[in-house]
């Protein structure tokens, strides 16, 4: 059998032909080493997460991969491949591990693969005690700067706070852009959060803006749509951007803001148009968490989504008490794309899903 044409070569074949390509994978290694060092220096423990979960937080659009496990009493139980390590982070916080991080593969069943989307990816999550979403923003800045320093050192380059990504130069010196989403909605879309609390009203506003609305979209979809169409493009391409104060409807695990109860204390980090991290001041009220999970469960049913087993043990963990904490997940593949100036998530994985079926 002869090798196929160049563009159909698998990554390992390309590497064999052109060993210089190894460099971008080494950069990803360095990013992971730097993250470990960063958190160890701060006294964080490393949590080793299982890759299966027997139950998951209820979230309306979540599509986990499913499989089953044979139990000793000849029972078969459905389990999920973790879409995030969150359920384990919260339980270990309840146990008293304290500040910790985890680096793990996670998986999400999506309807397509894209340049920023792969069914499995490497996630870094950390939990910062007695902290809120603003502290997470500071963590992100410090972490990325120390990653950059580590990578530059490993590559024998002079340390700099500049990246070249595609046609842009990105400056990561501290003081990244911070965008209050509740204000951005008013500024860029002329939408007041208080006006769109009513679902039907929100849909009407979208329709009058020219969106192809069929009035079957749920609130969350309307929001994601307007965000992707009118807000995301406004972020600076020169600076990383934190977007915070999301509408309370979009994240069932986040604490509401006490000053503005229409928003929750969630933050997302965008660099070069990519969502790199998503974190929040964690909701600790077990009754409220249970109520929101029930709400999400009902929403799943309405959307025709296959049910996910209810994570009662997570509610039990919250009921037993977890310390005030802010937690965040960061996609290391997308970050590696930025560090290596590559366009596709398949460029930073040795065995990308994209080429399994070529």
């Amino acid at each position, binding site marked *: 059998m002869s090798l196929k044409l160049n563009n159909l070569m698998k990554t390992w074949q390309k590497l064999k032909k052109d060993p210089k390509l190894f460099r971008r994978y080494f950069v990803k290694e360095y990013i992971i080493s730097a993250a470990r060092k960063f958190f160890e220096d701060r006294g964080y423990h490393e949590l080793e997460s299982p890759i299966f979960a027997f139950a998951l937080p209820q979230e309306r659009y979540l599509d986990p991969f499913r499989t089953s496990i044979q139990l000793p009493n000849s029972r078969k139980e459905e389990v999920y491949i973790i879409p995030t390590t969150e359920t384990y982070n919260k339980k270990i916080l309840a146990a008293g591990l304290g500040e910790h991080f985890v680096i793990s593969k996670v998986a999400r069943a999506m309807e397509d693969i894209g340049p920023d989307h792969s069914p499995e990816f490497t996630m870094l999550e950390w939990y910062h005690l007695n902290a809120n979403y603003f502290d997470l923003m500071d963590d992100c800045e410090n972490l990325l700067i120390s990653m950059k320093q580590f990578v530059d050192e490993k590559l024998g380059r002079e340390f700099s706070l500049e990246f070249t990504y595609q046609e842009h130069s990105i400056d990561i010196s501290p003081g990244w852009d911070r965008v209050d989403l509740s204000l951005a909605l008013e500024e860029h879309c002329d939408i007041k959060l208080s006006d769109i609390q009513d679902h039907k009203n929100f849909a009407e506003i979208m329709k009058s803006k020219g969106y192809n609305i069929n009035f079957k979209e749920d609130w969350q979809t309307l929001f994601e749509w307007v965000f992707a*169409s009118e807000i995301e493009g406004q972020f600076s391409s020169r600076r990383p951007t934190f977007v915070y104060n999301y509408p309370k409807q979009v994240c069932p695990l986040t604490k509401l803001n006490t000053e503005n109860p229409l928003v929750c204390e969630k933050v997302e980090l965008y660099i070069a148009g990519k969502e790199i991290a998503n974190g929040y001041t964690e909701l600790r009220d077990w009754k409220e968490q249970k109520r929101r999970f029930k709400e999400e469960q009902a929403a799943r049913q309405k959307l025709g989504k296959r049910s996910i087993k209810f994570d009662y043990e997570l509610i039990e963990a919250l009921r037993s008490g977890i310390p005030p904490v802010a937690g965040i997940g960061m996609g290391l593949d997308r970050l590696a794309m930025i560090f290596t100036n590559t366009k596709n998530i398949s460029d930073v994985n040795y065995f990308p899903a994209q080429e399994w079926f070529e």
Partner: protein
Amino acid sequence: MSYTNNINKGMYIKFNEEPYVVLDKEFYSPGKGAAFNRTKLKSLKSGKIINQVFKSGEKVDEIFVDTKTMQFIYIDGNKAYFMDPQTYDQIYISLENIDGKGGYLHSSARYVMISYEGEVLSIQLPKKIILQVTKTTGATKGNTATNATKEAELETGLKIRVPLFIEEGDKIEINTEAESYVAKAE
């Protein structure tokens, strides 16, 4: 009707009552949220490029345009005239609607005319075109850098960067999408 999940590069769709060609499509799903398709669309009427986010599962009108291979004949003012080599029918298109204006129009190349419901919308350039260099400077002595370039003017008036060894009278191959020099033509 087609669904946005099935939109592909190069597909023609009707959007806001106007015909568009899909230049790019990317799957996108925010966090654990709903799925979307981010597209880059080019209006076949105005040539304007827009970014449009479609909700996954949304319906779009796929349209079927007519294509015909045409020969370029001449430019008069702001109009480029083409001829159907089979019927000798002539049509013109405003230079504004042609990528690169007149710079890539030459009688030796073939162009694909796109029309929809009887109306001529645009002309697709060939991916590669061969043009003659009419004006360029000699190679600078001592400049041995292998990637050094200089400016050259071509027979259509187009100006482009070429390697130093290219001389006046040479025919060169141009990539019309990248708007760049590819190779010296034999």
